[in-house]
């Protein structure tokens, strides 16, 4: 890649300018939501619309913190707990599973791999009613645990398919060296293989977290009480109640994006590999 010559000079300038223009057009919806959250309600309804807040208004954020019913931070914390739990379950189960699939040949391996692949394609609609009945019977209906358990089912197959490639790419010699040093199968796995596959584990944790963070269907269906619901369900409720109170709604949306944005900014390299390796090769 690097030997290929870079474009420079005037052509470079033009291409850069075009790319920035594309960026502005494509990310306009995000910008618009952000500035709407910082406008006063009167300014939002002004015609023609203002393309930046003429009067900076942070009341939308402050008000949501104060009102008890739709306390943003409460649902933020709920989402955080649920997503962390789901990511934890996914990683704990997926790391050994992907190692087993990548490094061993055993009866039923293909069937298992296929079934993980298939679960990635399932629509939530198929699972909602049976899960609903199941969680009621397990007495976890209307608790965080129900959403956590359900959300993990998205993270697990994704993580296995990604990590399997990481483990498969680790040379056998490394593992064998560990055996020669007297490590058992399990110690070799924990001491040698997991550390090498760490970037892969990060990708899995991040994506499992993000899948759970973005979930609406499970959180809304399995958790009834507003004060236990995740932030996405919070927004949805809020939309129903305050219909066109756009300053509040967009502020809620911006807060929901914060963790995603932080992950996006600080873990950019993991995101590209997560988006590509999960899809290209099963």
């Amino acid at each position, binding site marked *: 890649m690097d030997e290929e010559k*870079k*474009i420079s000079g005037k052509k*470079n300038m033009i291409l*850069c300018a075009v*790319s920035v223009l*594309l*960026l502005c057009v*494509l*990310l306009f*919806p*995000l910008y*618009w*939501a952000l500035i709407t959250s910082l406008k006063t309600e009167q300014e939002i*309804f002004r*015609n*023609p619309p203002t393309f930046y807040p003429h009067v900076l208004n942070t009341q939308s954020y402050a008000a949501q913190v104060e009102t008890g019913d739709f306390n943003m931070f409460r649902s933020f914390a709920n989402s955080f707990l649920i997503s962390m739990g789901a990511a934890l*379950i996914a990683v704990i189960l997926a790391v*050994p*599973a992907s190692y087993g*699939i990548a*490094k*061993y*040949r055993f009866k039923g391996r293909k069937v*298992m791999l*296929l*079934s*993980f692949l*298939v*679960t990635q394609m*399932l*629509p939530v*609609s*198929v*699972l*909602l*009613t*049976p899960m609903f*009945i*199941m969680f009621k019977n397990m007495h976890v209906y209307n608790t965080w645990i129900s959403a956590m358990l359900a959300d993990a*089912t998205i993270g*697990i197959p994704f993580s296995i398919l990604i990590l399997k490639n990481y483990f498969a790419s680790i040379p*056998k010699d490394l593992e064998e060296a560990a055996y020669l040093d007297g490590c058992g199968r399990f110690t070799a*796995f924990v001491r040698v293989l997991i550390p090498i596959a760490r970037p892969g584990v990060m990708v899995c944790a991040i994506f499992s977290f993000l899948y759970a963070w*973005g979930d*609406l269907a499970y959180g809304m269906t399995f958790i009834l009480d507003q004060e236990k619901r995740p932030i*996405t369900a919070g927004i949805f409720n809020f*939309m129903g109640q305050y219909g066109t109170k*756009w300053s509040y709604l*967009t502020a809620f949306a911006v807060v*929901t*994006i914060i963790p*995603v944005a932080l*992950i*996006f900014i600080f873990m950019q390299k993991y995101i590209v590999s997560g*988006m*590509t390796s999960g*899809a*290209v*090769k*099963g």
Partner: protein
Amino acid sequence: MEKLKKRFRYDNAGILFVLPAFLYMLVFVGYPIVRNLIVSVQDVNAGNLVRGTKHFVWFENYRELLGDSVFTTSLVNTLRYTLLCLVFQFAVGFALALFFSKRFSFARPVRGILLAPWMIPVTVTALMFKLLFATDIGVLNYILRSLGLIEKNIEWLTTPETAMFALICANVWIGIPFNMILISTGLTTIPKELYESASIDGANRVQTFFKITLPLLRPTIESVLILGFIYTFKVYDLVYVMTSGGPVNSTHMLSTYSYKLSFEMFKYSKGSAVANVLLLILMAVGILYIKATTKGEEE
């Protein structure tokens, strides 16, 4: 062959590593699929959902669907929506991938930032597009008005055809980064020498695109389209938040209609039946995907 064999341990101990995850998925996904099939041939309502006897009505629920015009609308909607989304997100994604494969200084960073729409929770995306498509304060209506294309504000989300258009726009916005990054990755696998020798042979850009880029990208394009189909076809949150299937059921998709039947009208059996139709179509396409991806898989 001998060398290949040596890379693995033929050892059933491996199953112990996989079993916990497999059992988890069996309990929380495998069992629900079976249960959903059973519910769809029974008569399950709010009264006997958790406890109580459920009577078998066999294919009654499915038969009912055939005469249900909302079901037909949802099915047609889902197909139309999926195909239109695929066409646009693939075209734009492909164009962007080609653009960013040029080595100018901003190529990498800008392409990275453009992935953002894929990461944003769909509920938030739905809200953002509701704002853009709002009738009175919507910026889209403002732009169209300023350009003189419309005189009166369009009621995007409360008119069936335009509501569908708005949904497609939102979904394309989410799908573009996915298409772009997968095709970008596919492009990097094409050996540069091919382009060099093509240009020595006097091939122009259009020729190299059709003779080199497209054929070599075929596996990537296949998996992008199939995965795109699967992700789009099972759409739920976006439609539920933006239109909830309205106005007057005109934008219902199979997933949202199934949800409505089960959790708003408490016709669990009929809802499950709709979900199974959705599943059936997804699985048919899924088999294509599995065939395509496991082609090179070692035995």
